[in-house]
């Protein structure tokens, strides 16, 4: 399966081609070239998936993973070498399919959405760069290759958020995203170094084949009361939490919505932000040897899920609602991983559920974002108050958006129902407390999604004094329809047969008690949303007024950003950086200035010696010679 290399090379070539030619190409040509490249890429990924999943299983019923391509890049010691290669196993192949599909949809969609924008070619070049980096991340054979591509997706995300570089908010958002994720990646890097120091390998296959190596090799070494193995894995999870916008490193994702909407769909909803989930899944057997880290992961995920869901309920910018919903849904995946274990298929249900939800969520969340893009394209605003009653003007967007909302709310037979049900089952079996917690969050999810839906498409009937919104062009509606179809059928994919914690086929069966509960909760939440938002009324305002404090706090995202500003500006800048700057300016610079001043003072005193009169020099020369001669003679005598 050496051709899988082209899945990476093709977008890279597109990036170089479009990036170097840039404005020499007509925008339309650049867009079509990029889309064609991605189409071929998608076809290759589908073919890979077909070939991979249809190959015969081995004696234990596991689909054998493959390394079709690998070369040694940097060799430090016999054990420690960094390779670049392609590693195919069920989850990486699944990710290949997800990424290429969403990327292709976004490429097509952008032909319409970005039409006439300045820098259209640059946009497509960056999209290709991002696709290449993300694909490289998922097929990484070793943790260091993953880290390299991890940073590359960070860079391309930075470039695409800041695409409208004349807009100050976009610049600030791109910097924020980059700095926050970079900060998290510091933890990731330290974690990688600790892990590889003890296990003497970067290779995923070696690491996961013998996961307890980290425990045995680092036995006895502890730091602040936790074993070094736990620290390494927790730090690696910190990198994942940064990319996946887990609390409290989530602050960059809502701001990242300043980028073009298709970019939000591709990077900040479907692919890059699940990199953290993918990372934990990739190292899952290793995480299983440190249950305390898995508990940390569960707790972080559960808190994030609830936090983001509450905040999403009161935001008014539709893209921010979707951003917080993304954070909440990714937290679902993280929680599912946290409650899983790799002892057998049954306790490993959370792993399968997490990957399943990753797959279905990518599709319907991309659909939601692309739908939001179509709405923004029509209304020229992100604010809910500018919308309302759009169902008559934009029928296709309306239907597809509704399907996605039903899917994310967990209504059968849409894909989200199946994956969310698996997650809830896995969580409840591990811990009832977290089970109830996550079910409540699922209810909140249904509520805020339908709040969004009703506010956009119902609410008021007469609309738009200045112009009538119109349905988006075919390039934009086609991806919507495609993704809506996928959302309708994805739940019936026998996902457990292909991806499971130990590779053996797992037959998904619905746990009807959990499923019924979650459906009832979701339907109640939808009914509540309908009661509040179906027709224009003042119930929401009244509710907001009665819970003024909570509402404002949630609207301001519980002041997390302000806390960050306080910590960075007041504490780090004020108490640490400013004294250091003072020391640098006054002590270090002062010492250097003193040397310079002393030298200058001395030279000013003695410069009269250089009079320019030759005879004076000769006089001094002779006198000096005589003096030295006299002294020499005196000494010799």
């Amino acid at each position: 399966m050496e051709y899988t290399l082209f899945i990476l090379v093709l977008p890279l070539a597109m990036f170089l081609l479009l990036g170097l030619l840039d404005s020499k190409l007509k925008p339309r040509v650049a867009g079509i070239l990029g889309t064609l490249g991605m189409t071929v890429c998608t076809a290759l990924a589908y073919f890979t998936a077909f070939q991979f999943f249809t190959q015969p299983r081995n004696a234990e019923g596991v689909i054998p993973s493959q390394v079709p391509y690998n070369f040694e890049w940097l060799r430090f010691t016999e054990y420690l070498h960094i390779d670049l290669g392609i590693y195919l196993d069920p989850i990486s192949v699944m990710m290949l399919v997800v990424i290429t599909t969403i990327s292709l949809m976004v490429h097509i969609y952008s032909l319409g959405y970005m039409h006439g924008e300045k820098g259209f070619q640059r946009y497509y070049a960056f999209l290709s760069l991002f696709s290449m980096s993300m694909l490289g991340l998922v097929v990484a054979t070793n943790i260091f290759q993953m880290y390299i591509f991890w940073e590359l997706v960070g860079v391309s995300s930075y470039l695409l958020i800041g695409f409208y570089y004349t807009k100050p908010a976009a610049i600030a958002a791109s910097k924020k995203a980059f700095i926050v994720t970079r900060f998290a990646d510091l933890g990731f890097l330290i974690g990688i170094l600790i892990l590889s120091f003890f296990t003497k390998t970067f290779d995923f296959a070696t690491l996961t084949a013998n996961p307890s190596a980290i425990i045995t090799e680092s036995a006895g070494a502890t730091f602040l009361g936790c074993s070094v193995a736990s620290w390494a894995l927790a730090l690696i999870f910190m990198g994942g939490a940064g990319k996946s916008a887990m609390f409290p490193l989530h602050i960059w994702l809502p701001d990242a919505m300043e980028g073009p909407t298709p970019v939000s769909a591709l990077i900040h909803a479907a692919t890059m932000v699940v990199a953290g989930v993918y990372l934990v899944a990739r190292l899952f057997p290793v995480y299983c040897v440190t249950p305390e880290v898995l508990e940390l992961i569960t707790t972080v995920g559960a808190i994030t899920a609830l936090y983001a869901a509450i905040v999403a309920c009161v935001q008014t910018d539709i893209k921010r609602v979707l951003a917080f919903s993304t954070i909440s849904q990714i937290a679902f995946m993280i929680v599912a991983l946290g409650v899983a274990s790799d002892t057998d298929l049954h306790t490993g249900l959370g792993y399968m559920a997490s990957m399943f939800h990753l797959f279905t969520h990518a599709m319907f969340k991309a659909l939601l974002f692309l739908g939001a893009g179509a709405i923004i394209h029509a209304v020229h605003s992100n604010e809910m108050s500018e919308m309302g009653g759009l169902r008559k003007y934009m029928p296709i967007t309306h239907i597809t958006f509704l399907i996605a909302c039903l899917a994310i709310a967990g209504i059968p037979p849409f894909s989200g129902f199946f994956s969310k049900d698996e997650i809830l089952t896995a969580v409840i079996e591990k811990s009832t407390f977290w089970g109830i917690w996550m079910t409540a969050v699922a209810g909140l999810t249904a509520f805020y999604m339908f709040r969004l839906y009703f506010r956009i498409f119902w609410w008021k009937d007469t609309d738009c004094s200045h112009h009538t919104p119109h349905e988006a062009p075919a390039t934009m509606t086609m991806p919507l329809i495609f993704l809506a179809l996928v959302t309708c059928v994805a739940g019936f994919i026998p996902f457990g047969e292909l991806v499971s914690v130990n590779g053996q086929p797992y037959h998904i069966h619905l746990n009807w008690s959990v499923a019924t509960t979650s459906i009832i909760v979701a339907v109640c939440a939808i009914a509540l949303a309908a009661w509040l938002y179906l027709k224009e009324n003042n119930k929401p305002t009244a509710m907001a007024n009665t819970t003024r404090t909570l509402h404002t706090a949630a609207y301001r995202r519980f002041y997390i950003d302000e806390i960050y500003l306080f910590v960075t500006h007041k504490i780090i800048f004020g108490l640490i950086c400013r004294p250091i700057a003072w020391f640098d300016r006054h002590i270090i610079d002062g010492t250097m200035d003193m040397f310079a001043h002393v030298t200058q003072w001395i030279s000013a005193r003695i410069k009269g010696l250089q009079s320019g009169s030759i005879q004076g020099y000769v006089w001094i020369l002779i006198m000096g010679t005589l003096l030295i001669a006299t002294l020499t003679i005196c000494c010799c005598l």
Partner: protein
Amino acid sequence: MEIPMIYYIVLSLVMFFAGVYGFITRKNMLMMLISIELMLNAVDINFAVFNRFLFPGQMEGMIFSIFAIAIAAAETAIAIAIIINIYRHIRNIDADNLDDMKY
């Protein structure tokens, strides 16, 4: 009767310090040049004398003084050329006027 070596050395000493004195006191650059020649010739005499009295069988001292004379001739030519150029610039060959190179 042979003249003793000390006579030659005293002569060369007088010539050398006459040159030094001239170099320091005379302001005219031609005069300074002549003073330099005086010092050079004093040294040449020393070479010849020491060769003649201390190492009679050898010729190095003689060769050296001839060499120094040749060098002195070339050097004088260059010095004169420089002096002429200075004269063309400032219409003057007084050493006191040449203090442009000070601090």
